């Protein structure tokens, strides 16, 4: 605890001195900019790789391996460190209390940076759970849980020893963030480890997909929205020197947002094998979400009423106003994209990429930069090095976002329309998928320019910070305030003695005051109950969607011919996961005329019962692969992986020559089968014990066929045979069922 004996002596006089811990806030601000630059630079490399495939440089720097690094770095490193800076700074001021434990604050900071560093190492190496924004493998997931618990304990204990009775709205949003992120992280990362850095999820197929997008959507909600709204409610009034526009609106905003958001996840799975009721529920709540989101936007923007003239000179307010405006745009676009008719066009295209970047670059990025520019002079106790540089950052960043988003909207709508176009004879107008990709190249270059401009802005922010730090006083002293000893608080860890027990009439009088204040006012002074109610609000939506799907068998009708993967196919599937193929290839044919025409029969819920994790994907830079099994001979796949341009001349896919050179490592295959058997996949003990031999036999067979087809010899112990085995299996079981319709029980 930060309060000292001197503070206790002061308590006797009715005044307490509070020294804020700004050191940890400074660290989080520096980490935000450093990781922001790294994460966005990786994003620019990815943009270049899509526009110019030769920039995929070797095994560890392909698009598939770097894409999760980019998303994790930007979400958890850039935005994560920004929200921690915001929370640590504003919580201490709003509660007039130093953080509960300096040690916990530092453990939180260093633990979080270690997690980010471990992600930066393991993801390019191919260690991934492959579920979007939850790619990190189980040991890192445990580390995240530990660090989050440290953060939560530190925060809630600070709440307990606060010196202001009522919690300001920013604190409510922080509470919702801490509680919900913990729930999401735990339930989406329930896995069975089968090796030091390999695991399989406890959910399979449709179930895994729903849990993942319940997590994925709410990671956006409770990691990229609620903490940033808390940031907005504290830093916007500070920067504008105006009180928040409407406190009433903020109450309605908070409760409706936390309740509605949690239901919206299934809109990521429209027209998939997810049961329609779940998908429709997600759509309805997504549309409802528009209102609270815009309520929040209006509350933020109107806080500036009477002070709009400050926009001309203040880069901080420029960042905040444009950031909140992008929030409004993204939260209008989100519900619109959740409408099934719109989603049928936008899903799997770059429209979604444009949508998330409007939110990430505009809302999260600009709110973070606005806060950082406001904080820098206060944290380093000197003037900002250059206001002009900050203004230049704002304009360059804004132009960058507009270029990026417009390019992605154009690319998404173009490709979506091309996929579904039929000619006058009723055939697909663009039957070759690559035709729809080539069309996007100019837009991919514009995206690269836009993203690069945004990074130039970040570099200017780093220069501004470094130059400000250079002229800061050498010994920065933490600021302090004197506050009256709270009369309402009945306990404190360092209180010299406990106060006298209160009498019944005192308690009745207090209750009378509270009732007159209203029940919400009472809640604001009651953090524990507030936290419990917030948890209930977010839990209702999750339970209402997840429990019926998990427990009602009719949601996932079985298909008799769907069998577990052979040991070699399983190994091939893990190579597919390692290389991040799911970043560009979906495995989900939607029940639409053009998709059935292009790929084959639409995907059924029962097809994925052994798929741990599900690999439906969310973006098609390449074609869907759910029906690719048996479409081409083995040799086609070997040549395609060696260099995709050998089979598809204008392909933008990176080459994977190492798959033809790397030894197939089957050590641990039995452990993998054992783990899956534990989860319900019907592998017998005999299959588990003989897994390596069975896999070797199948590999020999495939290698022989490749040789017979005119391919290279000696591939039986190379990774490519496993990948070929897996790819040839895709869609095979459903074809078997089609041969005998009675076995297709749906």
């Amino acid at each position, binding site marked *: 605890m930060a309060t000292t004996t001197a503070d206790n002596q002061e308590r006797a006089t009715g005044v307490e001195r509070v020294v804020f811990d700004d050191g940890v806030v400074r660290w989080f601000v520096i980490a935000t900019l450093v990781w922001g630059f790294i994460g966005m630079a990786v994003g620019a490399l990815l943009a270049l790789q899509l526009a110019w495939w030769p920039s995929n440089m070797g095994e560890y720097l392909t698009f598939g391996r770097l894409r999760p690094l980019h998303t994790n770095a930007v979400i958890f490193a850039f935005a994560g460190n920004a929200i921690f800076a915001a929370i640590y700074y*504003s919580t201490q*001021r709003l509660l007039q209390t130093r953080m509960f434990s300096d040690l916990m604050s530092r453990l939180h900071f260093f633990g979080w940076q270690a997690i980010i560093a471990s992600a930066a190492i393991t993801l390019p190496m191919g260690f991934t759970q492959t579920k979007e924004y939850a790619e990190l493998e189980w040991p890192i997931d445990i580390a995240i849980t530990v660090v989050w618990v440290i953060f939560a304990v530190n925060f809630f204990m600070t709440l307990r020893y606060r010196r202001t009775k009522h919690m*300001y709205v920013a604190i409510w949003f922080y509470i919702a963030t801490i509680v919900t992120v913990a729930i999401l992280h735990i339930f989406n990362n329930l896995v069975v480890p089968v090796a030091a850095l390999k695991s399989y999820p406890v959910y399979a197929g449709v179930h895994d997909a729903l849990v993942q997008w319940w997590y994925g959507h709410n990671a956006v909600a409770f990691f990229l929205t609620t903490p940033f709204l808390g940031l907005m409610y504290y830093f916007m*009034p500070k920067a504008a*020197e105006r009180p928040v526009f409407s*406190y009433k609106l903020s109450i309605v905003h908070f409760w*409706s947002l936390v309740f509605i958001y949690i239901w919206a996840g299934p809109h990521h799975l429209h027209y998939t094998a997810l049961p329609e009721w779940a998908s429709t529920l997600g759509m309805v709540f997504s549309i409802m979400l528009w209102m609270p989101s815009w309520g929040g936007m209006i509350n933020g923007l109107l806080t500036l009423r009477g002070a709009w003239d400050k926009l001309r000179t203040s880069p901080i307010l420029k960042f905040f106003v444009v950031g909140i405006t992008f929030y409004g745009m993204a939260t209008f676009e989100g519900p619109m994209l959740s409408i099934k008719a719109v989603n049928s066009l936008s899903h799997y295209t770059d429209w979604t990429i444009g949508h998330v970047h409007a939110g990430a670059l505009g809302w999260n990025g600009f709110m973070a930069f606005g806060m950082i520019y406001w904080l820098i002079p206060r944290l380093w106790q000197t003037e900002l090095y250059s206001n002009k540089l900050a203004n230049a950052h704002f304009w360059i960043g804004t132009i960058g976002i507009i270029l990026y988003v417009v390019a992605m909207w154009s690319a998404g709508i173009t490709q979506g329309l091309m996929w579904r176009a039929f000619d006058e004879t009723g055939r697909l107008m663009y039957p070759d998928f690559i035709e729809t990709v080539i069309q996007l190249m100019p837009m991919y270059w514009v995206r690269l320019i836009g993203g690069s401009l945004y990074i130039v802005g970040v570099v200017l922010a780093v220069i501004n910070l470094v130059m400000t730090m250079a002229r800061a006083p050498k010994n920065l002293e933490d600021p302090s305030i004197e506050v009256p000893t709270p009369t309402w608080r009945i306990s404190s860890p360092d209180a010299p003695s406990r106060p006298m027990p209160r009498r019944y009439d005192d308690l009745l009088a207090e209750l009378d005051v509270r009732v007159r204040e209203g029940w919400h*006012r009472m809640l604001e002074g009651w953090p524990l109950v507030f936290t419990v109610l917030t948890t209930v*609000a977010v839990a209702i939506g999750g339970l209402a969607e997840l429990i019926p799907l998990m427990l009602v068998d009719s949601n996932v009708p079985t298909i008799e011919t769907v069998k577990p993967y052979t040991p070699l196919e399983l190994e091939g599937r893990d190579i597919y996961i390692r290389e991040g193929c799911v970043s560009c290839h979906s495995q989900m044919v939607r029940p639409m005329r053009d998709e059935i025409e292009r790929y084959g029969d639409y995907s059924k819920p029962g097809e994925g019962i052994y798929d741990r994790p599900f690999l439906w994907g969310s973006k098609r830079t390449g074609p869907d692969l759910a029906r690719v099994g048996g479409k081409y001979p083995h040799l086609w796949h070997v040549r395609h992986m060696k260099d995709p341009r050998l089979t598809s001349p204008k392909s933008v896919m990176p080459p994977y020559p190492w798959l033809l050179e790397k030894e197939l490592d089957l050590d641990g295959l039995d452990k993998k089968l054992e783990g899956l058997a534990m989860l319900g996949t019907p592998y017998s003990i005999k299959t588990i014990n003989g897994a390596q031999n069975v896999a070797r036999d199948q590999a020999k067979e495939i290698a022989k066929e490749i040789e017979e087809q005119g391919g290279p010899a000696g591939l039986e112990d190379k990774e490519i045979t496993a990948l070929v085995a897996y790819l040839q299996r895709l869609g095979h079981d459903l074809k078997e069922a089609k041969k005998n319709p009675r076995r297709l029980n749906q």
Partner: protein
Amino acid sequence: MIRDVMQTAGLEGFAEFGIVVFVLAFAMILTNAFFGMKKDEFERMRHMPLDGGESDPVDSEYA
């Protein structure tokens, strides 16, 4: 066992129940926010970010 119970539990109304709970809670919150609280309390809460914390050094020293 749990599956059997769930499948015969008539879960069709489960989602609708959630919406009813939401509408009721939302109505309570609206009523309380717009009619149940005192104006001076709202004003105090609105000003909280401006009132809490140290005096702003940027205004006084660095600006």
